[in-house]
């Protein structure tokens, strides 16, 4: 959990993924499309990947990846990101966290 929090606070937009996860690819694409440059951390390439995945699940992230943090705050998985994007709040969150400017 510490590792997750530590990494999540280092950049305005942070996404935890797995290299084999294609839904993660979708969410990454969406962030790039919005002009954000999120920090990507692949759990299968992290030393404490298993513990991190466990921590994410405990946060309520189902499935555990992709797990999105904006401004250090846990936003959710793919379902949440899409919902927030549709009602316009994702963009606002990114602007507030200075991940994007417009």
């Amino acid at each position, binding site marked *: 959990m510490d590792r997750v929090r530590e990494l999540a606070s280092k950049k305005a937009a942070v996404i935890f993924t797995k290299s084999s996860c294609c839904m993660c690819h979708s969410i990454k694409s969406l962030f790039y499309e919005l002009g954000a440059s999120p920090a990507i951390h692949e759990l299968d390439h992290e030393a404490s990947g298993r513990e991190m995945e466990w921590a994410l699940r405990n946060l309520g992230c189902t499935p555990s990846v992709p797990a999105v943090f904006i401004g250090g705050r846990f936003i959710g998985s793919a379902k949440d990101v*899409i919902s927030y994007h*549709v009602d316009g709040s994702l963009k606002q969150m990114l602007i507030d966290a200075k991940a994007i400017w417009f």
Partner: protein
Amino acid sequence: MADGSPRTDISSDDTDEKNQRFDRGKSTAIVAYDSSDRSKDKTDQKTLRRLAQNREAARKSRLRKKYAYVQQLESSRLKLTQLEQELQRARQQGIFISSSGDQAHSSGGNGAMTFDVEYARWLEEQNRQINELRSAVTAHAGDGELRIIVDGIMAHYDEIFRLKSNAAKNDVFHLLSGMWKTPAERCFMWLGGFRPSELLKLLVNQLEPLTEQQLTGIGNLQQSSQQAEDALSQGMEALQQSLAETLCSGSLGSAGSSGNVANYMGQMAMAMGKLGTLDGFIRQADNLRQQTLQQMNRLLTTRQSARALLAIHDYFSRLRALSSLWLARPRE
């Protein structure tokens, strides 16, 4: 001389040509007899009349039989067309029917058929709700009443997304195939359903007048749904790519070596894992559809929402009707 004898009124029919010729022949023969024998003449007249009536009756009987036969042909042809259509429809629903015409097997298993039944029921209910909404709008019902019906229709949409979510766990390929939709709808399908951004494009013109705020909102919504669609499409492409790579990779070695078998099984296991993520994509696509509908509803007034829902339903109804026409079209 031949025409001098009394003749019954016989229409010029093919079969009657022969009879007319016969008549003339007979008449000639009769006239050749001694016309001074008047009593015999009278009997002959009666005989002639009777024979003519017999001929007429026979002709009518032949016509009746001919007509009955043609009728039978016509109804058989109709029945054949109907059966062909049913067969076509059944085949499209994934029910395998062997050409020798014995038992039908469901290729999708119970999951597919269950969903098809549930979907049919859902459509029926939606038709009912839409008719109710249409009546209310035509009768200039107040916002309060319209709101209740609109909320009901929105809740009903939630229901189909729930049903699809369950069905995706059972048989994601059935949903992706679109076999539960009609052909024309299938043509426009994206990730197991309609494309939200396309739907919004269709609606915008029908919703005027819109306030500045609404126009901006709808514009943003169109852009957001387009972006999300692109993102999900890219994820799907990555999945297909990854799956193809998994199935292509293989080591060259002597056939039957245990290493090869282990490799093959490993590949299959990995491919299975990737296939398992497909239902996640359908679920997020449906999530996008649901969110888009809800956001649209939030941006519009009750009356505008009512018009929007009617317009959406009419569009899909027409697509379904088009499919029916297409399936029933005469073929060479």
